[in-house]
């Protein structure tokens, strides 16, 4: 079969660092070609080279057999290459129709002439079963529909080579299924799709072939149908990965954290972003708060940890009412917090590893004497954490955290928060953006905390994580808790229905 895209011997360097090292990547006409790799393996860089965002130092790109030079995304568009970015690039106060024609507006005498565009878009939408409302505003539609708008945008400009950059990260299981159908339909019409992902289940379901990158190097291309998930993951990580987390059965003990009728208001809209939420987290239990992004989970955690003021309700830690306590007091009382945004909250990026390692404990007598920092003790402590948690960086404990990789930055936070010997760990998406190895490691650490009789409150958007790690799941939808579930008794599909708000098992009045 003919190759529509050939990227031969591509090398891309950022300073000393080789992001891509002699990578060859070929996509055939009419296939879904998965691009698999851990974070930092070079998937996005490779696609950015194809899309004209970066120029490769070495190598050539052939489109339909002709060598081309792609200097910017406009060149890529002219070659009919389109891309749906991980974070959608849509204008929020535009309508769907306006967003799709943006950049290719049809005009007459300088005035917009949308009738033709509208017809073309509706035809495309019907043909590929992309249900959209052309007159809805982007801000008002769901993430899934925004994604379909992005897809329509590519189709509208007659692209036939489509790049999907981790498209499923923001979708519910039902939306994912729908996306898979759309992708299959697109390739059946002769389009070619590059599907960037590190989720093996999805690759297995939708892709025809799969190319694997590891640390900027091309590892190989396999037929998905004849390759097992285990084999693909081994190619990706370079070693065998244990998919099943070992968890022993533990009977949960006393309540550590109790949240009673917590209500929080949004700063802007005065809407209840967290609405009358109550739950208990117990010793030896990983309690997971599941939900689609933006349903109040972040605010709930801000309220519990003290980063945001609450409107009403009570937060009780080990019998002590901490509702009005400062962040520092909560921290000393035994609350650890692995924050959602590691760059904004979790780390001081321009401080080095040592300084970040004591961010929550620098005032303790072991690290200071009459206000003077004990530099020796801090250094030793950082070295201990580096050894214990396998934190890798260029200059050891003297590395500036900004220069470290995302996974290792996260390890610094996890190490710091878990090593404080907390009563409860509040972890928000602790594995977001991390590769399989680091994810596995952090899950093990959380389970170790649980096994040591601590409480863990895990907030996650990743369904696999929710199902695998947690002992109990509460689902949040539009600021309320709509379900209290046992992961062993439900399926992913059911969980998805709760998350999407089409099912609920807990009444607001009743305590969850």
């Amino acid at each position: 079969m003919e190759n529509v895209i050939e990227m031969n011997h591509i090398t891309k360097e950022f300073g000393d660092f080789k992001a891509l090292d002699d990578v060859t990547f070929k996509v055939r006409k009419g296939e879904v070609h998965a691009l698999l790799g851990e974070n930092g393996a070079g998937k996005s860089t490779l696609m950015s080279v194809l899309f004209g965002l970066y120029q490769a130092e070495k190598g050539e790109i052939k489109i339909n057999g002709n060598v081309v030079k792609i200097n910017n995304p406009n060149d890529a568009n002219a070659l009919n290459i389109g891309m749906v970015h991980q974070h959608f690039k849509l204008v929020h106060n535009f309508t769907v129709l306006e967003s799709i024609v943006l950049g290719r507006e049809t005009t007459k005498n300088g005035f917009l002439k949308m009738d033709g565009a509208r017809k073309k878009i509706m035809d495309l939408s019907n043909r590929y079963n992309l249900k959209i409302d052309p007159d809805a505003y982007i801000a008002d539609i769901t993430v899934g529909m925004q994604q379909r708008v992005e897809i329509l945008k590519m189709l509208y400009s007659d692209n036939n080579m489509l790049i999907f950059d981790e498209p499923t990260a923001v979708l519910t299981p039902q939306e994912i299924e729908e996306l898979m159908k759309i992708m299959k339909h697109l390739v059946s019409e002769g389009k070619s799709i590059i599907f960037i992902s590190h989720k093996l289940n999805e690759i297995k379901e939708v892709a025809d072939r799969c190319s694997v990158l590891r640390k900027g190097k091309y590892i190989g291309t396999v037929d998905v149908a004849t390759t097992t998930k285990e084999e693909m993951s081994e190619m990706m990580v370079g070693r065998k990965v244990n998919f099943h987390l070992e968890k022993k059965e533990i009977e949960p003990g006393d309540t550590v954290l109790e949240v009673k009728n917590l209500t929080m208001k949004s700063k802007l809209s005065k809407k209840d972003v967290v609405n009358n939420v109550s739950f208990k987290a117990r010793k030896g239990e990983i309690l997971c708060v599941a939900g689609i992004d933006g349903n109040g989970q972040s605010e709930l955690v801000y309220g519990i940890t003290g980063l945001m003021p609450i409107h009403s309700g009570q937060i009780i830690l080990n019998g002590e009412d901490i509702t009005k306590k400062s962040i520092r007091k909560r921290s000393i009382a035994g609350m650890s917090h692995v924050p959602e945004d590691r760059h904004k909250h979790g780390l001081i990026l321009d401080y080095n590893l040592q300084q970040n390692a004591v961010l929550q404990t620098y005032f303790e007598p072991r690290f200071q004497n009459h206000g003077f920092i004990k530099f020796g003790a801090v250094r030793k402590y950082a070295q201990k954490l580096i050894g214990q948690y396998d934190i890798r960086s260029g200059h050891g404990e003297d590395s500036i955290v900004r220069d470290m990789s995302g996974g290792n930055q996260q390890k610094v936070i996890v190490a710091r928060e878990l090593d404080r010997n907390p009563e409860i760990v509040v972890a928000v998406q602790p594995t977001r953006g991390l590769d399989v190895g680091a994810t596995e490691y952090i899950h093990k650490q959380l389970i170790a905390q649980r096994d040591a009789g601590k409480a863990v409150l895990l907030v996650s958007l990743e369904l696999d994580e929710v199902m695998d790690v947690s002992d109990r799941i509460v689902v949040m939808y539009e600021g309320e808790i709509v379900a209290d579930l046992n992961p062993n008794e439900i399926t992913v599909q059911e969980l998805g229905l709760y998350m999407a708000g089409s099912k609920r098992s807990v009444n607001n009045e009743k305590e969850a």
Partner: protein
Amino acid sequence: MKKKHNLLHSEGTSSFFSAIMAIAVGLLFGLVILLISNYKYAFPALITIIKGGFTDGTTGMGQVLYMATPMILTGLSVGFAFKTGLFNIGASGQFTSGAFVAVYIGIKWTFLPPSIHWIVALLGAILAGALWGMVPGILKALANVNEVIASIMMNYIGIYLVNMLIVKTIYDPLKNQTLPIAKSAVIPRGGLDKMFGVNNMNIGIFIAIVVVVIIYIILNKTTFGYELKACGLSPDASKYAGINDKRNIILSMVIAGALAGLGGGLLYLSGSGKYMQVLDILAPEGFNGISVALLGMSNPIGILFAGLFIAHIKVGGYNIQLFNYSTEIIDIIIAVIIYCGAFALMFKNLIYKLTRRNKMEKEEER
């Protein structure tokens, strides 16, 4: 070999080199202006500027030290606040209010024992400056009022209030300035005046150096400094870590104000011929402080040397009057240096890239 690379890559060295580059560009620009205004003497004048304080032997050097003292302190004031993420543009007002209180105590509080009179006057200056810095600090911490706006306003309140108070209390109407301060309020000269042959010279420069060291220790060795810098680098992460950012913002502005106030006290307690004039002009020392802090990259040690350097070429600026050039050329040169200093990051990256390219080329050769 390895050591040399470390040296080139270290933060301090590249900061130093970028400052040197900024200075070189500034001087080059100064040369152009000298050439335009009178090309005949341009080169001798430039050399005079560069020689600065070294032209007149010890006198010139004494002059440099004397001029540098208040600038180092206002520079520290701006730099210290900057480390906490605050832009203290109000060093001028803090400087003036400190100067007034020092002079007031120096004139009126003659009941104090002579041995501590000048010390009390300096403490008064510190307190007044601290108060002037505290106001924008409190507004910022409690009401989130931008400290730039608040401290600019405090500059004007400072200058007009001080003018009013001078006229009401310690005014010499004949000369439109303050009365002379009591002898006991003059900062001890410690023989430096004789050593350098500069009448105004006193131990102020040593006080400034001691303060530089104290600020350096606070910023780099204490948990307080750790907190302040954390607030400056990432307010969100500091909040997450439970650091009391409101307290730190206020404290940081108080300390910044105190430093500028001390600078005012040191300048106007030097006696012989130094009086506060009743003018509607913001004290230039405050704005020089911004220049010094920028050139010194907000590092206390860097500020010490930046203050000395700017004083050095200012003395050079006075000397080029010999060639019929106006001293304001120095202000232009300083301004250009500061502009380039603002591009310091760019210079820094340039140096970093150059050294790295060298390294890579060497590796390729191997």
